[in-house]
């Protein structure tokens, strides 16, 4: 399929979706499902009256703390588990159990442990991101071709050189896939936590959800959609720029 045809098809897809939204919205009315025109009309008031962008900025700041912590811990533990059988054996049972734990079910517990503020949101985001980063790094580290490391040793590379020049470049694609999955889950977790305690961007979703018209709620949903897409696309862009060999991406689903 030619690039031109692809773009035409995409435009047709997006165009018909937007048209369908408008028609459905007019048939159902603002109370049930607002058309895109109503959403666009109320969008400025969402920013002025609901302080949406201010709340969103605060939420994203907390998200970045938790996410960064999750990446650092996930990468460190993932490499340790991938390169040492002892770490693997000691951590595997807990990692599998915690990976299977639903974030929503942790929210009431974390409220008791961490309160309602910064620590609570950071902890929830951390728990949602860390296992994806960890498992991807772990699979990458476990699958590193031993011949590469032996070659390094044969050329008298020091352990630090082996780590930074062989291990990390090999792991990089796995880490990036883990970070992408982790980010997608972080955003979900942030919204879960914030809607439960009604703070930050979650409070915007909650409060607009109580209004008679669904137009402001749709505005909030479209905003978080763009935030998610922008975050994931910039990670993908960083991956392509910093590591051209990244294209051969593999990862743990």
């Amino acid at each position, binding site marked *: 399929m030619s690039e031109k045809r692809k773009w035409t098809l995409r435009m047709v897809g997006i165009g018909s979706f937007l048209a369908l939204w408008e028609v459905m919205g007019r048939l159902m009315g603002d109370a049930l499902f607002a058309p895109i025109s109503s959403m666009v009309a109320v969008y400025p008031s969402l920013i002025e009256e609901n302080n949406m962008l201010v709340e969103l900025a605060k939420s994203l700041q907390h998200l970045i703390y938790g996410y960064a912590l999750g990446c650092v811990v996930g990468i460190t533990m993932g490499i340790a588990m991938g390169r040492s059988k002892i770490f*693997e054996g000691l951590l595997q049972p807990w990692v599998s159990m915690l990976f*299977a734990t*639903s974030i929503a079910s942790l929210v009431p517990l974390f409220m008791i442990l961490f309160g309602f503020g910064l620590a609570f949101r950071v902890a929830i985001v951390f728990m949602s991101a860390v296992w994806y980063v960890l498992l991807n790094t772990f699979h990458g580290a476990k699958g590193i071709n031993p011949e590469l490391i032996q070659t390094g040793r044969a050329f008298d590379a020091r352990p630090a050189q082996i780590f930074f020049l062989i291990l990390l470049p090999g792991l990089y694609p796995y880490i990036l896939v883990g970070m992408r999955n982790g980010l997608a889950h972080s955003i979900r977790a942030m919204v879960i936590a914030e809607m439960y305690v009604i703070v930050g961007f979650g409070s915007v979703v909650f409060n607009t959800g109580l209004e008679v018209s669904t137009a402001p709620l749709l505005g909030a949903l479209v905003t978080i959609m763009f935030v998610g897409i922008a975050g994931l696309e910039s990670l993908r862009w960083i991956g392509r720029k910093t590591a051209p060999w990244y294209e051969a991406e593999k990862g743990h689903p």
Partner: protein
Amino acid sequence: MKRITVNNPHLLYPISIFGGLAVWEIIARSLPRTLLAPPTAVGLRLWEMIGDGSIPVALASSLQHMLAGYLLAVLVAVPLGIALGRSPSLSVALDPVLNAIYAIPSVAFIPFLIVWFGLYFEGRVALVFLMCFFEILMNVQQGVRDIDRGLLDAGHSLQARGLTFFWLVLLPASLPFIFTGLRVGIGRAVNAMITAELFFAAVNLGKLMKVSGNAFDTASLFAVIFVVSVLGLIGQETVGWLDRRLLTWHHRDIA
């Protein structure tokens, strides 16, 4: 004789589990009781809650909306996934829209679902459906797109057309990917089940969590979290087991 080495998982896993529990026990005992319950208290509480019927009764009704939403999602997402995987034009046209909707956290749709389906059973089913639907769709679509062309060409050259082609070539070739979608989907269904019970009217396991949370009863909270996690693991294992039992030809080939 088999030598036992330090990195033997049979030796390390029990050490890991009991060591972790011991650390938790020590930390919990040094903290105020309302903050973090020790594992011994959690185990005891879990035993009590199973014994007095509160967990089994809640679980039985939780499973109803979970399974209803999951099955609905499977019925819609699998055929749609096969169609999108088979038709490049359709998937190019719909992918941007589907990816955009998928990028919105499902919980953010809850105010909508409440308006459309109410606070009770129908609302919970709708959330489970929504959370499973995209996960299954994406997996099936991706898999069907990657089906070995040789297999499809062989079917065509043997004059398989229409329904025959679908039942004898396309469906069997798609089944491994459908099962991957089903396995990922059931994990999401368990998440969605507990999310729905916490965010719509609190019922069943979600109600147990809310009541215990308000009473600072962390032992009961851990007990429910444990039950939900185990349910997720059992769900995924069951689908994996069905996959291995039903698709013996596929697993023989890749073994």
